[in-house]
């Protein structure tokens, strides 16, 4: 009887796996898979990597890419880069935002505060398109979740710049990247060895920077990932224990009628 049920369950399981696999994980080019610290059910962010990632963002990416959904205060929150309160204040103070109107009815410029959103490099989307030769540099707040392959994809694109094959003609401002759709990208290779000087002394290789910025972007897309993993583990352990208790209660109750449920 149990065998029978298992067999049924197996059929369903096989059908479901066959069903979902090709639909959602069809990826023609094999991405560069990294052993991310935030993968898996107990995955956490590497704090130092997040802080370095922020440095890469602000020194490299931020000249074109906005992150309009984040606030400076997020940088100090638990589960994130966890900069100290003073560091966050200092970071925010580097930026200027327009505020107002003041009591004279005029807009004014003031240094940013931790409660302000990340200052965007361009006043609006159209301006960013014009400044980048017709290509829109996407907002990076949820970029990792907005791309198939997630963190691996972002990392792969950053590491995927190569010389184009000889039979391929590229227009001005278009670059070859083997992980992009159509193998073309309008962003030049943003990273190179030694481009930034890490505050913590880590050697800034291209690979290291790609890893750090990807970690940072994963956090920005999913700032509560650590809480989610921690809560999830507790919830599931609780549910398993409860299920076992309910199972034996059920056995006992049904034993009054029929030894087999």
């Amino acid at each position, binding site marked *: 009887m149990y065998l029978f049920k298992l067999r049924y369950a197996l059929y369903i399981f096989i059908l479901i796996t066959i069903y979902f696999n*090709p639909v959602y994980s069809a990826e023609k080019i094999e991405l560069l898979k990294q052993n991310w610290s935030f993968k898996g059910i107990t995955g956490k962010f590497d704090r130092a990597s997040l802080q370095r990632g922020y440095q890469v963002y602000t020194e490299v990416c931020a000249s074109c890419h906005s992150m309009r959904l984040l606030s400076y205060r997020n940088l100090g929150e638990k589960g994130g880069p966890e900069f100290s309160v003073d560091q966050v204040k200092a970071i925010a103070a580097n930026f200027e935002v327009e505020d107002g109107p003041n009591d004279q009815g005029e807009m004014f410029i003031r240094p940013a505060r931790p409660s302000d959103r990340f200052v965007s490099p361009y006043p609006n989307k159209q301006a960013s398109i014009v400044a980048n030769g017709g290509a829109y540099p996407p907002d990076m707040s949820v970029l990792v979740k907005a791309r198939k392959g997630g963190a691996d994809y972002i990392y792969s694109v950053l590491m995927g710049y190569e010389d184009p094959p000889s039979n391929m003609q590229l227009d001005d401002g278009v670059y070859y990247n083997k992980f992009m759709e159509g193998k073309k990208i309008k962003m030049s290779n943003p990273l190179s060895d030694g481009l930034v000087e890490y505050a913590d002394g880590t050697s800034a290789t291209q690979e290291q920077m790609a890893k750090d910025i990807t970690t940072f972007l994963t956090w920005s897309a999913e700032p509560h990932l650590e809480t989610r993993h921690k*809560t999830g583990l507790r919830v599931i352990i609780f549910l398993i224990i409860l299920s076992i208790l309910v199972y034996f209660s059920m056995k006992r109750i049904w034993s009054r009628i029929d030894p087999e449920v």
Partner: protein
Amino acid sequence: MSEHTYTPSSKFGKWFNDRLPLLTLSDHLINYPTPKNLNYWWTFGGILTFCLVTQIVTGLVLAMHYVAHADLAFDSIEHIMRNVNYGWLIRYIHANGASMFFLAVYIHIFRSLFYGSYKSPREIIWILGMLIYILMMATAFMGYVLPWGQMSFWGATVITNLFSAIPLVGESIVTWLWGGYSVDNPTLTRFFSLHYLFPFIILGLVVLHIWALHVPGNNNPVGIDIKKPSKDTVPFHPYITIKDLFALLIFIIIFSGFIFFSPNILGHPDNYIPANPLVTPTHIVPEWYLLPFYAILRSVPDKLGGVVLLFASLLILLALPWLDSSKVRSAVFRPVYRIFFWVLMIDVFALGYVGAMPAEGLYLLIARVGTAYYFLHFLVVLPFLSRIEKTDPLPLSISEPVFTGMPKPELMRSDNRFK
């Protein structure tokens, strides 16, 4: 409602119950005689009730923070994910809850198909169930539009455009649905309004569904009529409640796996890109639970034809109790029907698979064959089969034949047939 009269023990209880028989209702629900041989496929009714309540409760909280405006919707969702206390949890429950709801409803429907639960005297239960299912699809579709991501926008565009295929008035209907000349803010606000309303209509239908169920009582894996109450039945509480609870917990464990460890696997990455009317995604695909119907829609080169088939594929289900006139309910005793049941199941999975693929080449061929079989199954196979099929002998009751020595004692428990 109850077969036996119930008198509350307290004086106040009696006074109250004479005026509003809530205690009689609760007594009925507690003692409701249920076949004792129900297997775990029967626990999905309770699971679905849980899903509906979960969606309503999480939806209420989300609606407190969500802003239904084309310029603000996407950001308000991100506000929920980032700033609202446990907003990420509530939203992931709601988003994955829709998928789990459909997973459960598909199991529930296929269980009904296998054991013939739609047959007399349970036709109304089946029809109510199908109406719930259709409303669920509408609700889920509109819910998917609310985050106002790329798939939201383009999904809404594709689906609402279907109505333009209607001759003469099609274009006007689409304009009316949109509240303008394209999918835009008015579309979003009305979808939000209806997305909020429909679950309560579903809730009402669920009450009727359960009410209609409690008139003839549950079908069972053997599919025969049983005396109620009798040796073949157990009171709903505690026997069925504890079993439903156990199954529900297993279901919630799987549900939690999605929520906490891969909350976005069932969604489309493009929906984290804000809606942009100027950029069309390469492949516009609906959520997985709508894919079989999407495949049927695209299998016809003619737009109107596709739309007609799409609606026909749903409406045909309402007529199922009359298309299949076999007196034997359970597929356990219908050796030929059983084969076609599995063929239909594979067919629906195949349709779902090609629904996610581009409509070209081999995929299109599979979609066409699959669509043809889908209609053939209901319109030709079932009516003929129910007339010519030689069914296996039925046991007299769930428990008795074991003692009186039926000619085919191995049929007593459905399970033995597959060992």
